[in-house]
């Protein structure tokens, strides 16, 4: 008899527990956001950091953070309590996988938006899926200009494009010739033979020719190669004054080290969003990475001077990955912040209305260089800026535009044997 009573009490307790849990679940409104990045494969490092950046933004948006001076930090969730729930998926850096994972996120997981996908070659097919399904695609850092030339209605990209960076590069070379008597006449390009690399190179060549520079060598390579000997040998044989580089991850380190092995350097190297921007790669390359230059949207040095509100958010991010934000990962955090601000302003989850807000609003964005985000035709952020930095002992020192410059760039680069 006593056993029966005990059983009845336990059963009642279990029911009560299940009921209260389901009530709590029902009370918590969630908005599913797909987070689609390369978590395995050659670009996994960058992809995992991008995911951590989106998670950081979600943490700030979902919980009260009165200590942070960024939009939505002082409230809990969006639309009066809706919490953001991230559904993470892996592209492996492959376009076909990106497409099928985007389809899964949209059709099976029922996500509201996808944020992704680092590689331009992956963002392209994944965003075609969302466009067909009339879902938003927030693209943080894929830089191929072709992505915003498609006139998509639901695609929005935060980072500057390769086109913007190419123009900045040639403008800077002109400035170097004028002010530092650099004597730069010829340009070479080395790039991975992918959507990103090819478009970056096309934009680089077009900008160089338009500015009157001669492009003397053009070296595409297969990413993940066992060596880059022929590639560097080809560059060395033509000996361009400046090289534009579009090499991601491990290929960047291999390229730099092969140049060292072959005892060759051009007068200057300017990198698109590549391994150059990765603080871990920079740390690993040590002194070998010095004096290389590239477009940079964020570094702790830039943040300390021009984006002071980032530091507090960066603490949350650094706890996750052990390194500060870089130019790419911070754009992914911005992507979620901007989306949340747009939903909040629209006051609804209606995709058409949120898209309208995205198209017509200038957003405050303390995590962006310049502090503002506004989307133009094709969904490109018209306020996106990057500055040219040069690496000095692991620090990204701004060198151009002159309004940001903190040091005079070392051009020509210090030869390998004199470092």
């Amino acid at each position, binding site marked *: 008899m006593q056993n029966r009573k005990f059983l009845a009490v336990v059963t009642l307790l279990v029911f009560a527990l299940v009921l209260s849990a389901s009530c709590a679940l029902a009370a918590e409104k969630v908005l599913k956001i797909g987070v689609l990045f390369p978590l*395995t*494969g*050659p670009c*996994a*490092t960058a*992809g*995992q950091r991008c995911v951590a950046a989106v998670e950081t933004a979600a943490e700030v948006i979902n919980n009260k953070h009165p200590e942070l001076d960024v939009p939505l930090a002082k409230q809990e969730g969006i639309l009066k309590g809706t919490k953001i729930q991230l559904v993470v998926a892996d592209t492996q850096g492959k376009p076909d996988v990106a497409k099928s994972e985007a389809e899964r996120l949209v059709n099976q997981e029922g996500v509201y938006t996808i944020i992704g996908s680092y590689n331009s070659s992956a963002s392209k097919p994944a965003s075609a899926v969302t466009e067909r399904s009339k879902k938003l695609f927030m693209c943080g850092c894929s830089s191929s200009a072709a992505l915003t030339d498609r006139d998509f209605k639901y695609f929005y990209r935060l980072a500057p494009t390769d086109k913007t960076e190419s123009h900045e590069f040639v403008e800077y070379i002109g400035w170097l010739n004028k002010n530092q008597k650099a004597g730069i006449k010829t340009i070479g390009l080395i790039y991975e*033979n992918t959507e990103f690399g090819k478009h970056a190179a096309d934009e680089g060549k077009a900008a160089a020719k338009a500015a009157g520079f001669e492009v003397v060598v053009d*070296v*595409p*390579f*297969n990413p*993940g*190669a*066992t*060596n*880059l*000997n*022929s*590639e560097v*040998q*080809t560059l060395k*044989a033509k000996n361009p004054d400046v090289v534009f580089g579009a090499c991601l*991850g*491990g290929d960047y*380190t*291999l390229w730099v*080290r092969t140049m*060292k*092995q*072959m*005892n060759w350097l051009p007068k200057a190297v300017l990198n698109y969003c590549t391994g150059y921007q990765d603080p*871990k*790669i920079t740390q*690993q*390359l*040590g002194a070998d990475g010095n004096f290389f230059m590239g477009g940079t949207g964020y570094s702790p040095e830039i943040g300390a001077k021009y984006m002071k509100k980032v530091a507090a958010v960066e603490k949350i991010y650094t706890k996750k990955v052990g390194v500060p934000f870089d130019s790419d990962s911070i754009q992914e955090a911005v992507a979620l912040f901007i989306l949340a601000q747009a939903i909040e302003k629209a006051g609804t989850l209606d995709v058409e209305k949120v898209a309208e807000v995205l198209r017509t609003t200038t957003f405050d964005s303390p995590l962006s260089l310049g502090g503002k985000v506004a989307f133009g035709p094709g969904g490109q952020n018209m306020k996106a800026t990057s500055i040219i930095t040069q690496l000095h002992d692991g620090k990204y020192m701004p060198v151009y535009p002159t309004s940001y410059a903190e040091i005079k760039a070392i051009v020509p680069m210090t030869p*390998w044997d004199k470092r």
Partner: protein
Amino acid sequence: MSTFVQVMLDGLLAGMLYALVAAGLSLIWGVMDVINFAHGEFLMVAMYLSYWLGFLAHVDPIVSWVASGAFVFILGALTYRFIVSRCIGKAAMAPLLATFGLSMFLKNFCLNRFSPNFRILQTTVLEGKKIILGDIVIGLPQLVTGLFSLAILFALYFLMKKTRLGWAIQATAMDREAAELMGINTDRIYLLVFGLGGACVGIAGGLLTSYLAVHPEVGALFGLIAFLIVAMGGFGSIPGALAAAILIGLVEALAGFYIAPVFKYVAVFAMYLAVIMIRPKGLFGW
């Protein structure tokens, strides 16, 4: 002319490294008729071991290759004992699929434990050293790796041709049942062959750390090239592996420089197809 010599030298050194990576695979494939799909991942494991020894204990790759070789010898032997031996005599694809599973396990284990970050040993004995002969530059890490490869391949060849163990391995490769009737413990031979195959790629991985970044994907293309070399050189043939590897290194370098860098693997695979069409057993096949 100096450019041509430089390109040839680069190709030759790359080929010598490929030969060491492929020699172990060739041995396993030739003797046991088993394709070790985890060969590239064995290289990656060896590189990680060498990297951590260098990073944590300051052991230079010029020394730590011994540990890498020994570790991957044990890994190879364990792979045979617990995975491959259970697949032999089953469906033809069983060992291939089992080692494919092992490769996925190793890759994802390293991805999980060591993150996808690229890791480079910054200060090694050979780091940045080079021999400059006029316009020709030879990187010392590459040269030393190439010379080590040649020495180890020679030792392996000597083992196979001049020792009783080598004869037992060859006998097992020719006819396992007959070898058993002659008193050869073929199971132990298989275990040793898998271990030796692992040791070769382990040594290559240990040395590679002196100039190449380590990451979980590093073995993929090396593994693929090793398969080409084995098929081109002839299954089980050490001189075949060396010849095919040097040929691949040279074609890669020459096509990459004189045609287009992006064409180098096209040229390599085209040559592989041509060799296989003309001589399906490979250049030195048994």
